[in-house]
């Protein structure tokens, strides 16, 4: 097959990463430092998620990789191929069939189960970084639960835009303790984080791993008079007519025509296979 | 007795000029009871203002006791002296010292505010005093730092009489005032006596002195050489 060790990383490194993952699961939302390795891809391409996936994979696993919900974008295809080559595991595009799903910026629409692990790629793990540049200070703030600053960010949002304009990477409080950056998922996905699957977060450049165990309480921060809203574009999918999925807006021409489609490609395809058809379903198909 | 001094002495030590010690007062003994006005006399430089500053706590007495309403100013903690100054002991100095920008009306009302008088009431009292002392109403909302010397002096007096201190120190309150304003100030002093204030004053003006003072103390008697 190949001369790679299973899933590229050496066993010692995988153990080190697994220890970080276990610690992360034990202290939900806490950012565990780990010795991130050089991976054969640039930072920003998911090196953190790839290392977490590599440490979690077993030969029996089935891997799915999505980027912004899609299985067929460059980033997703590259990572899928990477593991096909280095681990030889099965891959799939179907959410239900996957045991490990590595994701960039989305949570699949289909409800995940206790048999699944969701691995997030995280660019900047520190939710307080926006207002406090000092790492020593942000660590102390986490340790002492000094999270007033997080609300200053939301206050600024409302004062500037009349509403909480933060649409992605919307900060959450995990199990009533740590404030956590959910990675740049749309805030539409935030409520889904209270799920049955294990959620692992890997930041390669920043060398941090954190985790949310199954059925953990995840609360999006807000104000009493400006409550959190999981918003999405007010349309149905133009291909599969789904009204409950997160949509991407696609510009069709320079005459202002556009379409809204599910960002979760597997979800959209499975609905169309089941016979649902949206406004532009026939033509696009 | 409201004010009672016993064997008070005062000297200045000039540490930066060969530690020269300049004695300025010895064995000052004096008492004033409520409703009484005592005039300090003595040549210029005899130590009238110095004595007043010692009583007010502005100068530190070297020895002796300076009792004002039961508090020994010579030994009291700063906060005790501040309480005394706020509630008991008023002082009208020759110079007005204020925060720039504060309007004259508020400068006068401040001693009342310090004892908890509501703002409106304090300003009413202040306005009536400024009117009595002929400060034109158009000046009330300006800082006294821009006023003439005579006007500043009158603002200073108004401030000293805004609150009914049980003890008052007046350092030449009638200096540089015209006849009409002088009469007003003397009226204020008589009013203070009538309500029982113990007053020590320095008056250069003979008629003013005779009008309000019950007796006189010549501070030349406290000069160090006299004791020697």
């Amino acid at each position: 097959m190949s001369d790679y060790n299973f899933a590229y990383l050496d066993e010692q490194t995988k153990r080190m990463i697994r220890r970080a993952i276990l610690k992360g699961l034990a202290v939900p939302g806490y950012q565990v430092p780990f010795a991130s390795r050089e991976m054969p891809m640039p930072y920003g391409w998911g090196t953190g998620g790839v290392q977490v996936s590599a440490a979690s994979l077993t030969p029996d696993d089935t891997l799915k990789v999505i980027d912004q919900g899609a299985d067929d974008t460059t980033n997703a295809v590259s990572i899928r191929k990477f593991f096909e080559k280095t681990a030889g595991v099965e891959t799939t595009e179907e959410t239900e069939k996957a045991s490990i799903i590595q994701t960039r910026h989305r949570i699949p629409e289909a409800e995940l189960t206790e048999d699944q692990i969701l691995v997030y790629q995280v660019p900047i793990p520190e939710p307080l970084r926006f207002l406090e540049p000092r790492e020593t200070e942000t660590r102390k703030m986490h340790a002492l639960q000094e999270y007033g600053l997080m609300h200053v960010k939301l206050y600024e949002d409302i004062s500037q835009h009349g509403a909480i304009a933060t649409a992605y990477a919307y900060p959450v409080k995990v199990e009533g303790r740590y404030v956590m950056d959910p990675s740049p998922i749309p805030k539409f996905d935030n409520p889904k984080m209270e799920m049955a699957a294990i959620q692992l977060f890997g930041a390669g450049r920043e060398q941090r791993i954190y985790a949310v165990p199954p059925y953990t309480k995840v609360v999006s921060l807000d104000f009493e008079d400006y409550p959190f809203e999981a918003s999405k574009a007010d349309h149905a999918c133009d291909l599969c007519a789904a009204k409950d999925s997160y949509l991407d807006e696609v510009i069709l021409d320079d005459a202002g025509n556009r379409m809204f489609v599910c960002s979760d490609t597997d979800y959209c395809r499975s609905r169309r296979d089941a016979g649902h058809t949206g406004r532009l379903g026939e033509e696009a198909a | 007795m409201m004010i009672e001094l016993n064997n008070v002495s005062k000297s200045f030590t000039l540490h930066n000029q060969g530690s020269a010690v300049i004695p300025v007062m010895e064995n000052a003994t004096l008492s004033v009871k409520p409703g009484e006005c005592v005039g300090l006399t003595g040549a210029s430089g005899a130590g009238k203002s110095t004595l007043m500053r010692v009583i007010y706590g502005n100068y530190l007495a070297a020895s002796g006791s300076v009792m004002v309403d039961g508090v020994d100013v010579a030994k009291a903690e700063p906060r005790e002296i501040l309480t005394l100054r706020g509630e008991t002991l008023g002082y009208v100095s020759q110079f007005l010292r204020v925060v720039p920008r504060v309007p004259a009306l508020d400068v006068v009302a401040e001693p009342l505010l310090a004892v908890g008088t509501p703002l409106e009431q304090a300003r009413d009292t202040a306005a009536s005093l400024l009117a009595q002392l002929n400060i034109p109403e158009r000046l009330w909302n300006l800082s006294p730092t821009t006023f003439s010397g005579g006007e500043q002096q009158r603002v200073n007096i108004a401030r000293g009489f805004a609150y009914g201190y049980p003890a008052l120190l007046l350092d030449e309150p009638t200096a540089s005032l015209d006849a009409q304003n002088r009469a007003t100030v003397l009226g204020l002093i008589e009013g203070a006596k009538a309500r029982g204030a113990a007053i020590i004053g320095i008056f250069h003006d003979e008629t003013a002195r005779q009008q309000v003072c019950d007796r006189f103390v010549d501070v030349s008697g406290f000069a160090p050489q006299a004791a020697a």
Partner: protein
Amino acid sequence: MTPLLQVQNVAKFYGARIGCTDVSFDLYPGEVMGIVGESGSGKSTLLNSLAGHLPPDQGEVIFDTRANGPVDTVTMSEPERRMLSRTDWAFVHQHARDGLRMSVSAGGNIGERLMAVGDRHYGGIRAQAADWLGRVEISESRIDDRPSAFSGGMQQRLQIARNLVTGPRLVFMDEPTGGLDVSVQARLLDLLRGLVREMGLSAIIVTHDLAVVRLLADRLMVMKDGRVVETGLTDQVLDDPQHGYTQLLVSSVLQV
């Protein structure tokens, strides 16, 4: 009456060099104390040691907490001390930049302490921020502007509002009027005096400007080479200084 702050034998050393040593005093509720001395006299070291920014090497800084009465802030846990510094204590820096978040609007700057103690009502936070802008004489229309768009005097007033919004009982000030124009200084001093009286604040003000302490401070502590050389009623220390160094300091002030 229980002192609000009891400082006992506080010392801070930088290696073998003395930062400050043998400092003891009591501060009562409503009292404003000035600490004066030239650069390097240890006054800022002392202030930072008292305010918990520097751990003192010796001594006790006992604060009369609302919940538990007098507690030594030097030995209390860091979370407790940090909570104190967000609620009952305030610190006004000489440079407003050190005390403000320059990338956050004026309203957000004032609201931060409220949110830090759990205020979660946007409308309420904003109303308090607007009220405080008014109290420090900044137009409410500037509430969404960043402090970088403010003049030096306005920044300093904003810093004061940001600190006082939680109704602290003790304010530490490090050269609060330093670097400001004389006219701007006067306005700030007047404002501080008013706030101190209205709110019954206790304050410790470090400055080298004797005019500032004459107007603001009830009592004075004069420091030289890390030690207190003289204390007393402000006007008494300035008009009748007893120590040679204080006499030198007072006589060095240029008369205008």
